[in-house]
């Protein structure tokens, strides 16, 4: 921007507005940089467009005013408090109306965050290497938990969300709640202990729930002691910690990860109404099935019985037929049938007559109708 000066009594004079504009446009050309310091005088209000604080040099006490768009600041979910050491990434800016200079912050990181993240990443690699997050270790949740364990902070929200979700869906559910520290140095061992205690008291599924929080707030849920306690937990564990985008190691080791405490509650119990419906349907089907099975057995038995009734007669008839057949063949071989056809058997005293005998020989003659004597001529 070109700033115009006027000539007054032989000197070049700038108006305040023009001067500030000039400084402002000059500042805008400076590069964006990281500045380290302590947070003081943090001011944030819902109706303000920006969040204000002062960054103080811990050694010299030098101060720098900082402004950040409130949406941007809230999006970081840092939960900053006065006295914390941070890195601010931003560029200098002038509030032209008042000639006040400040740092326009674009992002903020807690001092040492990078080290934290790296340590977390190393721990994650190590535990993954031991197979703690392996898919084949994930256990299914029980369909009908007898006793549900809930580990949560004594802050109302997460606990209430879980309990409401459970009792809405499955009113007879039994829940054992263990309230522990859920942030700070004592949180991780406290949660791990609560997990163990609830298991000993016979829960058959566990929920570890906590509402959203800053990166530091959720650090206990990535603690190695807690992760190992959950890995060796004898019952399935549901994690419901923070928001969707947070991914504490607890989420990786848990058998099921729920995006919110409410979801966790719904996951661990069946829907009672739905269950009643399907039970009724199953009973009706059982009823029909049992009747049909009986009918099928009765039909089969009846048919078998019918066959049994007929079988002996059949067997006897077959025998009779076979007997008749043999008898017929026997008959066919007997000489009687020959006589029936008109032949005669002629006997003399010395046996069957096969050549013409002398005259006067006495003969016995068999014909079909009987026997008679004769004498040859």
């Amino acid at each position, binding site marked *: 921007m070109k700033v115009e000066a006027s000539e007054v009594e032989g000197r070049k004079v700038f108006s305040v507005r023009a001067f500030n504009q000039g400084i402002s446009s000059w500042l805008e050309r400076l590069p964006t940089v990281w500045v380290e310091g302590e947070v003081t005088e943090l001011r944030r209000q819902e109706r303000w467009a920006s969040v204000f604080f002062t960054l103080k040099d811990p050694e010299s006490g030098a101060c720098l005013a900082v402004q950040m768009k409130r949406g941007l600041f809230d999006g970081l979910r840092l939960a900053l408090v006065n006295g914390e050491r941070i890195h601010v990434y931003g560029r200098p800016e002038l509030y032209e109306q008042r000639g006040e200079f400040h740092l326009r912050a674009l992002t903020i990181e807690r001092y040492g965050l990078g080290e934290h993240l790296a340590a977390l990443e190393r721990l994650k690699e190590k535990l993954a290497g031991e197979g703690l997050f392996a898919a084949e270790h994930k256990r299914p949740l029980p369909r009908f938990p007898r006793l549900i364990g809930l580990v949560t902070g004594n802050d109302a929200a997460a606990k209430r969300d879980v309990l409401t979700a459970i009792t809405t869906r499955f009113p007879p559910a039994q829940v054992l709640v263990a309230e522990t520290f859920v942030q700070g140095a004592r949180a991780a061992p406290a949660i791990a202990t609560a997990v163990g205690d609830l298991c000993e008291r016979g829960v058959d599924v566990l929920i570890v729930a906590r509402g959203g929080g800053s990166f530091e707030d959720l650090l206990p849920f990535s603690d190695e002691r807690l992760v190992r306690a959950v890995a060796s937990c004898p019952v399935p564990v549901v994690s419901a910690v923070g928001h969707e985008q947070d991914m504490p190691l607890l989420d990786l080791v848990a058998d099921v990860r729920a995006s919110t405490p409410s979801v966790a509650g719904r996951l661990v119990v069946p829907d009672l109404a739905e269950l009643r419906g399907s039970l009724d349907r199953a*009973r*009706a089907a059982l*009823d*029909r099935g*049992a*009747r049909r099975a*009986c009918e099928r*057995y*009765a039909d*089969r*038995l009846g048919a*078998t*019985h019918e*066959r*049994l009734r007929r*079988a*002996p007669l*059949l*067997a*006897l008839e*077959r*025998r009779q037929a076979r007997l008749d057949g043999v008898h017929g063949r026997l008959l066919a071989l007997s000489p009687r049938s020959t006589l029936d056809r008109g032949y005669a058997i002629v006997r003399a005293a010395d046996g069957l007559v096969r050549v013409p005998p002398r005259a006067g020989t006495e003969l016995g003659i068999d014909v079909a109708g009987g026997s008679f004597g004769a004498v040859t001529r």
Partner: protein
Amino acid sequence: MSEPTFEESQTELERIVERLERGDVELEELTRLWERGEELYRRCAEQLSGAQGRIEELARRLGSEPSAE
């Protein structure tokens, strides 16, 4: 020896019928097998009607409204 199950009795009965129908049975055996078959039939029929009775009774006791098909 424990009471034969329904299935065992039914299987034996069906074997007997098959044998009788094949007709390769000694005449003396015929009557014996037939009597055995009738006895098995009676036993099966009793067991079956007993089971049916229990199902009906249970359904009544549970107040089973005739289930809508």
